[in-house]
């Protein structure tokens, strides 16, 4: 369970994210949605410790995130961002294996896991021998997903995972990623501005407005009873 209690991050007087109170139960799949600049990515960065709240705190399984517990938490996190952020000097296979080697997994275990992950994201092992720049954007994102899943994370944190892809590969991957996420039992927090993507990847939507939660519901409820004109506008803009 991830808990955000009064989490606030202040950039300047006009740009404040929070205070946000949010609970993500174990195994839940939650999407943080809203237009750009609403603070959804900042919230995810606060959760994973890349930003530090000015007030309030983030807790995982009831324990506040501090440098020591953050490290323990991060080992159980799979993190995927829109630009894949693969290490360009390492072959794709080494990008994926890096963390398993760091965790001192024996090489036969690593090999087996690589096979498993490759078939999960539908990449051939041959392709993995290439460098990231030799792959297409969609393939790179698949490799990054393999890297995120390498250690079998309990928490999957996805920050606009498909936003940088062209529309066709994006559609294709949305379906695939949605199906994949649902076969995993990881607690999932996904940030996206795309309502369709949110629905494919998550069961519950947290719609943000200027750094605060505007509505927190499952998708049918969100569509059926929008709380405000802001929500209605967002739904209308996102299309049917």
């Amino acid at each position, binding site marked *: 369970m991830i808990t955000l209690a009064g989490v606030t991050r202040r950039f300047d007087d006009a740009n404040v994210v929070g205070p946000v109170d949010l609970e993500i139960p174990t195994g839940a799949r939650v999407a943080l949605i809203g237009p750009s600049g609403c603070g959804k990515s900042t919230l995810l960065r606060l959760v*994973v*410790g*890349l930003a530090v709240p000015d007030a309030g705190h983030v807790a995982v399984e009831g324990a506040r995130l501090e440098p020591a517990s953050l*490290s323990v938490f*991060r*080992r159980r*996190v799979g*993190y995927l*961002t829109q*630009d894949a*952020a*693969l*290490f*360009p*000097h*390492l*072959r794709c296979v*080494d990008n994926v*294996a*890096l*963390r398993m*080697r*760091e965790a001192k997994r024996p090489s036969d275990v690593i090999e087996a896991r690589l096979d498993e992950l490759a078939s999960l994201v539908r990449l051939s092992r041959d392709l993995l021998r290439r*460098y*990231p*720049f*030799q792959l297409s954007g969609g393939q790179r994102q698949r490799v990054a997903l393999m*890297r995120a899943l390498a250690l079998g994370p309990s928490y999957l944190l996805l920050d606009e995972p498909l936003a940088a892809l062209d529309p066709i590969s994006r559609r294709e991957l949305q379906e695939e990623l949605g199906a994949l996420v649902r076969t995993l039992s990881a607690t999932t927090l996904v940030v996206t501005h795309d309502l369709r993507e949110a629905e494919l990847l998550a069961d519950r939507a947290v719609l943000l407005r200027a750094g605060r939660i505007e509505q927190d519901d499952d998708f049918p409820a969100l569509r059926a009873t929008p709380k405000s004109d802001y929500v209605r506008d967002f739904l209308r803009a996102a299309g049917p």
Partner: protein
Amino acid sequence: MKRMKRLFLRACVALVLGMGVLVSICSKPAIAHAETPVVRVGSKRFPESLILGEIAVAVLRRAGVPAEHRAGLGGTAIVWTALQSNAIDLYPEYTGSLVHNLLGDDRRLSPEELTAALAKEDLAVGPHLGFANTYALAVKKTGKTADLLSISQLATRSDLVLGFSHEFIGRDDGWVGLSSRYGLGSLAPKGLDHGLAYDALGAGSIDLTDAYSTDARIARMDLRVLDDDRAFFPNYDAMLVMRRSLSVEATRALATLAGRLTPETMRALNAAVELDGRTPAEAAERFTDDLSPRGGVLRPRPSFLSDLLGVLRAEGPRHLMLVFVSLLAAVLIGVPLGILAHARRGLGRLVLGLAGILQTIPSLAMLAFLIPVFGIGVTPALCALFVYALLPIVRNTVVGLDEVPTAQREAAMVMDLSVSTRLLQIDLPLASRTILAGVKTSAIINVGTATIAAFIGAGGFGVPISTGLGLSDTRMILLGAIPAACLAIALEGLFFVMDRWSVPEGLRLEGRQRDERQSP
């Protein structure tokens, strides 16, 4: 991943081994001689001093005393400090300069006073050689200076271009004292190397220069020495000044030189070197052969190519050692310093600022600062080269690490990779190309700067350059300049190979693809 690490290790080991071999090659002669004390003769960087240094060495060797010539050290200040700090045992000097070195002014000392003053420094007056070489001002007898006879006439001649050696301009017993004695403060002399002054005078780009009264060119170029009508220039008797610890045999051998060099002899020796292209060693050989019953015959001069090979053999290993040992030290200190400076911004600014300041110190001045601490020779040269090599390496390490993209840095953080894994497997490989560029810059700077090291007796390709400048001998300058230039070019090649070896393949291939896309 393992392979990457291994590659880095291999590069480091190879570098260290290479340096080790070089150092051992270069230091062998020193070890071999360590048992018999070799008399170290110094000399300044102009023909007469070089010839006298060679003569002293020849006389010592003839008497069975092992001796070596630390030829062509920088100016008076460097040779004097070298003698004081026991880095050399003796060198030819002139009484006026000696008193100036000792007391900082131009008092005239009686021989007894001079001996007493030197004794305080643990030094002694050696034999007077038999001629005086006083400072003089020389002009052409034709043209603008046709009617210029004495120094006092200069006061009204603002139309003349004065070209003096840097040493003369800076000395109290040179231009500083002269201009105040004669009221010439309004004239602004140009500084140039003494070796180039006569050519400049001949070409008419200067009208007047400082000269020594035994300069061969005064007679050969039919120059006029201006009358020192207010008796400013002190007495410059040529002599040897030596450490008191010099052995009895050595002192006795050198004493045979007393009074043997008349002004005519000295001018002839100078002419052999300055005008007839003989080396100081050849001139000295002729002189010492004249002392012996065999009489002197000059051997034919070797070809440029064989001289070049000789320089490569004699100075190549030393030059490489100077460049690479200082470079290795700069890498070993500079990269960690860069990592530290990247991690702590405040410290980083301090380190970069400090390295920047050190970088701006002119190399000769840096060497002069280091002499009181390390004496002359290899150690201060290595220190200076290390300091110059440091800034590009530290700066490029910081820049390279700064350039690691935020996305990759954050990915590594969230992956909870250990500090050492992040540094060794992510950050440094990603910064490797920039760091290597810094090392290359430092290496090339060092090849050039190492030629200056000859001024403080550290050897290297600077030896023929320094001596050649002193003799205004272009051939000899080229003997040092060509190998140095070739070394710089060879380094470019070496770093091209190093690039393949130490920059991760993924980065190289990616860079190449980017280049190809950009080219039409």
